């Protein structure tokens, strides 16, 4: 009865996302590194765009998914913990993509303008998003029952949805004061030809599929962890009952 064979952990949806991700990412790597032309102004360093732009898109997508899933948990009739798991998984995976965005953006800036950091609104807001989500993950780790953890994190996520646009808006206002710097965004002066645009687009799809694949697996691991905790509770209960019948 005991099967020691390793069973696959994939499902039809993760296989679909995984396959799409592999296909698209292959295109992006090959196309981005070899077939697309270098930029007139930036030279070869423009190729970072194929990583930086899609990961920035995915970082914000993750943020929106967490916000929406949190709202669906809070305002849904059954307060289903599945939404909370999606919110948590999306935030975790999103953190990784935010880090990639920040690092790739920083390197790109170094190559293009000679500085690792610019107070560009998009980069600054992404940095704030990153720190906010570090805080969100810390709140998720505070302990308590799954329901309480879910409710607390959902509130924090929805407050973050209020906060991030405010941060972005005030940073945009702030940078508009410093007209002399103008918009030193690294992709401000790139002329995109057809192949570059297509590769970028495929990159967005590829990274999004990777995101979906990761979130799907992560939330399943979280579900399994909750089942494990329930099992551990069962044995803790039995122990406690046993200690009661001994006295």
């Amino acid at each position, binding site marked *: 009865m005991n099967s020691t064979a390793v069973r696959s952990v994939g499902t039809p949806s993760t296989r679909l996302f995984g396959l799409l991700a592999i296909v698209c990412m292959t295109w992006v790597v090959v196309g981005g590194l070899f077939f697309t032309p270098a930029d007139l102004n930036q030279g070869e360093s423009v190729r970072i765009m194929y990583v930086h732009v899609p990961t920035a898109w995915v970082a914000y997508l993750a943020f929106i998914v967490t916000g929406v899933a949190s709202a669906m948990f*809070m305002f849904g009739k059954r307060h289903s913990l599945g939404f909370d798991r999606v919110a948590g998984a999306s935030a975790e995976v999103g953190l990784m993509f935010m880090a990639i965005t920040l690092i790739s953006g920083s390197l790109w800036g170094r190559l293009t303008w000679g500085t690792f950091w610019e107070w560009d609104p998009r980069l600054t807001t992404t940095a704030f998003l990153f720190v906010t989500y570090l805080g969100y993950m810390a709140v998720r780790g505070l*302990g308590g029952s799954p329901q*309480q953890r879910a409710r607390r994190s959902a*509130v924090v996520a*929805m*407050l973050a949805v209020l906060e991030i646009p*405010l941060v972005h808006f*005030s940073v945009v206002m702030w940078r508009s004061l410093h007209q002399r710097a103008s918009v030193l965004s690294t992709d401000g002066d790139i002329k995109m030809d057809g192949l570059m645009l297509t590769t970028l687009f495929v990159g967005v799809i590829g990274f999004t599929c990777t995101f979906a694949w990761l979130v799907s697996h992560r939330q399943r691991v979280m579900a399994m962890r909750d089942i494990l905790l329930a099992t551990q509770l069962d044995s803790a209960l039995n122990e406690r009952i046993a200690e009661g019948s001994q006295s």
Partner: protein
Amino acid sequence: MSTSPNIARVARVVAAKDLRIEMRSHIVVQQVLPFAGLVMVMFAFALDNDDVLQRVAGGLVWLATLFSLFIVVQRSYAIETSDGALDALRVAGVDSQGIFLGKSAALFVQLITLEMLLFVLAVVLYQVQLSLAGLVLLVTCVLCATAGLAFVGTLYGGLTAGARGRETLLPLLLLPVVAPVVLSATRATESAFLSGGTVLADGWSWVGVLAVFAALFGIGGLLSFGALIEE
């Protein structure tokens, strides 16, 4: 059966209680004000340039306020958790929105007191100048910014109060959220001080941002405080 009071009454009583406790214990006056004043002095040591200090005086005042905010919020909740008073309020079914408003109001008063001192210090230590029109802008800026800080501090303070290992979470959660306040309040204050070549009109747009922030988090806090202090 006794009747439960409405939100406004709860808020008033909670705010009065917090302020009465401060008046008896003098924690803000005897500990936090000196701390904030010292922070202002430390800035002078670190920056060591009178022109620079005069230009960035606005920002330094708000930074000192920010650091003090953490301490004042933690004190605000320490009195609630040291003997289980907040739990007792929850068991009694006291309206959490009233508690939120009351604690925010008390925090507001304490912060305003702090900021008044800090601005006086800025005039003394950093030699800033202030016109009448600038004063109006400054007062409005301070009122709106402090309201926002009070709401956000009360909200996240409630989340991080009590349990071991939670208090250290407060700065991490609070800093990203108050960033727009620090940014906007500093720009408006600089306009009021006419430092860095800014004009008064710019300052008023920043005050607008502060007002929006305060309104959003006032309402957001009212709606979410109850869920955050729940066990």
